[in-house]
């Protein structure tokens, strides 16, 4: 199918307005989720409890938007019976909203750990965690760009790059395990690091899903085939 939105507008202009409103909410969610993630990592790194709390509080807005997007999408499906590009777009927006809501949850979890950890002194492996966080944020950001600009090439390249985060996760995982084995007193801090890393790795997966949705809207076909996978199989899944 063509690589962009249909060129002509709907004959019924209120249909276009409904679709535009739906997409505006998704774009807002994307911006919020990305900012929450960046701020959570920054606050964690700086051990800024206030900022962590502020990130946690922002999650509520994402939940509201998710509910609103779902209601709008259901309304469009019921009243307009979308087909072809329109159908793909509405379905993708619904899935985008639940994916971004989960990204918000993960950012919130990182921020919550930031609150608990602030008193415990500097985190080991903070450099690696920050690098991973930045990689996940960039993936999410580019996947969102691909969605908004209907760029299936970009979506594909984001999708292929998920392996990088998996690799970062894998190496961080080994680093933390070695560290904990060397000094059992660091096990508590080390496990916090691991959960944070796991959260960021999940963000990477969600970014990949956003890229899949971006691709589907444009191309009309799901992005399938074996995605290059990292070797994170022995890592915890919590």
């Amino acid at each position: 199918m063509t690589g962009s939105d249909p060129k002509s507008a709907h004959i019924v202009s209120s249909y276009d307005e409904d679709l535009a409103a739906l997409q505006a909410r998704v774009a807002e969610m994307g911006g919020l989720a990305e900012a929450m993630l960046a701020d959570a990592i920054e606050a964690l790194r700086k051990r800024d409890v206030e900022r962590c709390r502020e990130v946690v509080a922002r999650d509520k807005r994402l939940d509201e938007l998710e509910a609103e997007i779902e209601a709008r999408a259901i309304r469009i499906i019921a009243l307009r019976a979308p087909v072809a590009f329109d159908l793909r777009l509405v379905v993708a927006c619904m899935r985008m909203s639940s994916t971004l809501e989960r990204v918000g949850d993960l950012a919130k979890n990182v921020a919550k750990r930031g609150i608990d950890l602030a008193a415990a002194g500097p985190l080991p492996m903070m450099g690696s965690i920050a690098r991973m966080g930045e990689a996940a944020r960039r993936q999410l950001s580019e996947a969102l760009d691909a969605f908004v600009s209907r760029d299936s090439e970009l979506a594909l390249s984001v999708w292929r790059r998920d392996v990088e985060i998996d690799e970062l996760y894998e190496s961080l995982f080994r680093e933390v395990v070695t560290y904990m084995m060397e000094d059992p007193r660091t096990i508590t801090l080390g496990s916090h690091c691991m959960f944070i890393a796991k959260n960021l790795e999940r963000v990477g997966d969600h970014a990949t899903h956003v890229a899949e949705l971006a691709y589907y809207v444009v191309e009309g076909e799901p992005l399938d085939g074996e995605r290059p996978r990292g070797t994170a199989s022995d890592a915890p899944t919590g």
Partner: protein
Amino acid sequence: MILPRLQDAADNAEVKVSARNVNVFYGQTHAIKDVSLDIADKSVTAFIGPSGCGKSTFLRCINRMNDTIEGCRVTGTLLLDGEDIYAPAVDPVQLRARVGMVFQKPNPFPKSIYDNVAYGPRIHGLAAGKAELDAIVEEALRKAALWNEVKDRLDAPGTGLSGGQQQRLCIARAIATQPEVLLMDEPCSALDPIATAQIEELIEELREGFSVVIVTHSMQQAARVSQKTAFFHMGTMVEYDDTTRIFTNPSDQRTQDYITGRFG
């Protein structure tokens, strides 16, 4: 006659009707331009497209209804079970018993409800006696979702029914002869949602034994009832594919613009 299979022919399914390079002219008007497609047996094929694009014209080629239109000329090849529909030896009346049609506007005969439905079975000698004919009439009326409304007044004139009832009467008349192919030109445009659902249920049932071709302006109806959809535009067939594909990811921009309501 064996024709090469078309690339987009109804895959796997047996081909019931084949059209190759069909052109239709009404005097100077070139209404159908070089249309080739295969219609599968035991399946429902939908024709969609803007008003005046030639859906009814093409449908009428399949049972030679265009023969009856003054100044109408059909060229190209049309086969039913591999046999040329336009061969000189073919009797159009016999052909129309095999290829039944429900028209865009209901056209009951000025006869009783019963006689409207019994007409085809009578002339083709399908019933051995009165009881058998009664059974055929009842079954056709039931399938067309009309029986309960007319069973107590079968002798009343068919023309005295409401528009939607008349359309269902014409459907009953068309299926009473058990045609192999049923052509339906916007059969539900005058029906309420319940009668429409009943006709769609009938179409689904007919599909088990027959080939059904339906012209419809309702995208949702095409999506609900058909396995294949052909999109016509200005006399040409723009796209012909699995219905699911047409409504999720059509290949032609014109198809997409039309079905999503963007056609200018």
